[in-house]
């Protein structure tokens, strides 16, 4: 299997699972503007997922389209990082997750835009502009909550502490890929460190760093997410509106 296929699948799965998780906030966000914002960000992620998974299906050449890849694989066949499958938690946990994801996706898509694979480059050029908005949005909230009240500060720090171990997996070396995620780490560190400093939050110590998502070894949370996401398609294969 080509490395371009593997990368398109991994990044497509990141975007798809992030979209599904973010969409859980629809009708449940703390205010209407936030509801619309998180749903919009979910839609952007879904858009990127569709392009990446469609392309992965073409590269694989086994006749699987975006729907087959999204709805007819089991958890062990998904290649998303663990970060995106984690439960939403409270709003601060979601914002910590979004900050880490966007601070990774912005340099990732920017690098992808310059890679030799034209299709991946087109996705990168398009998605990086959308990710820049996601990063701004998450950074605004992390600063507002971190530098807010005692309670909001406490919960924002707890959110960052909870999410932080999962950031490492995003930058695992992949030297033969069109973009090696390891090269994105300095950019990510600069962005996140600056946001956390302005938010009066502490960068957590790096200790335990779970991984395995890229090899199909996931947390139990992914199975529940997939059950909900896939049930309709599996119960009614080929159903159309």
């Amino acid at each position, binding site marked *: 299997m080509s490395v371009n296929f593997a990368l398109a699948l991994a990044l497509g799965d990141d975007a798809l699972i992030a979209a599904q998780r973010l969409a859980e906030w629809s009708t449940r966000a703390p205010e209407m*503007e*936030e509801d*619309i*914002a998180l*749903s*919009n*960000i979910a*839609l*952007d*992620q*879904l*858009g*990127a997922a*569709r*392009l990446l998974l469609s392309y992965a299906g073409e590269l694989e050449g086994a006749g699987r389209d975006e729907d087959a890849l999204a709805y007819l694989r089991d958890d062990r066949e998904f290649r998303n990082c663990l970060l995106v499958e984690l439960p939403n938690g409270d709003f601060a946990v979601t914002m910590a997750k979004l900050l880490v994801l966007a601070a990774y996706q912005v340099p990732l898509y920017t690098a992808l835009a310059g890679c030799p694979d*034209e299709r991946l*480059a*087109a*996705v990168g*050029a*398009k*998605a*990086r*502009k*959308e990710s*820049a*908005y996601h990063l*701004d*949005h998450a950074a605004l909230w992390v600063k507002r909550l971190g530098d807010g009240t005692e309670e909001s500060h406490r919960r924002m720090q707890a959110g960052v502490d909870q999410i932080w171990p999962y950031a490492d997996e995003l930058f695992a070396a992949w030297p033969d890929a069109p973009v090696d995620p390891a090269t994105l780490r300095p950019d990510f560190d600069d962005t996140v460190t600056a946001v956390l400093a302005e938010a009066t939050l502490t960068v957590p110590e790096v200790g335990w760093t779970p991984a395995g998502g890229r090899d199909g070894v996931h947390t139990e949370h992914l199975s529940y997410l997939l059950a909900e996401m896939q049930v309709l398609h599996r119960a009614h294969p080929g159903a159309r509106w």
Partner: protein
Amino acid sequence: MSRAREAVAAVVDPEIRVVTIDDLGILRSVLEDPATGRVVVTITPTYTGCPAMDVIRADIRRALAAAGHPDAEVRTVHSPAWSTDWISDVGRAKLAAAGIAPPAPVRRDGVVPLTLTVRCPRCGSPETEQLSRFGSTACKALWRCRSCSEPFDQVKAL
């Protein structure tokens, strides 16, 4: 302009019905094979997840069928990525007339610039504030005018 091009250029955006897909820069090209008369239309989405794309494709096919091209093909391209700089002056004027603030120009290095002021499309006042960076569609943000108190949409610079 060919009849096919004219028919496609008149298709309105399903979510912002005051502007056409041509005004917005979604329409990239309309090519007609002189020998066979077969028409190939190329479009590009504003946002990757834009849910209006299927409707736009269907509307294009319907417009072309009415113009005598029932077997037209609609292709979607993602490169070069759509930019709000592709919205025509006519399109910007139509948006403003409908109470939607047009986007500010985008810096060429791809960085989304800080918008210093957005004028209220109703009263023209520069005393406005952003309520939400995300609005009723993927391409818009929500603002409010502090002078006339009206909320309004703004097409986000992209």
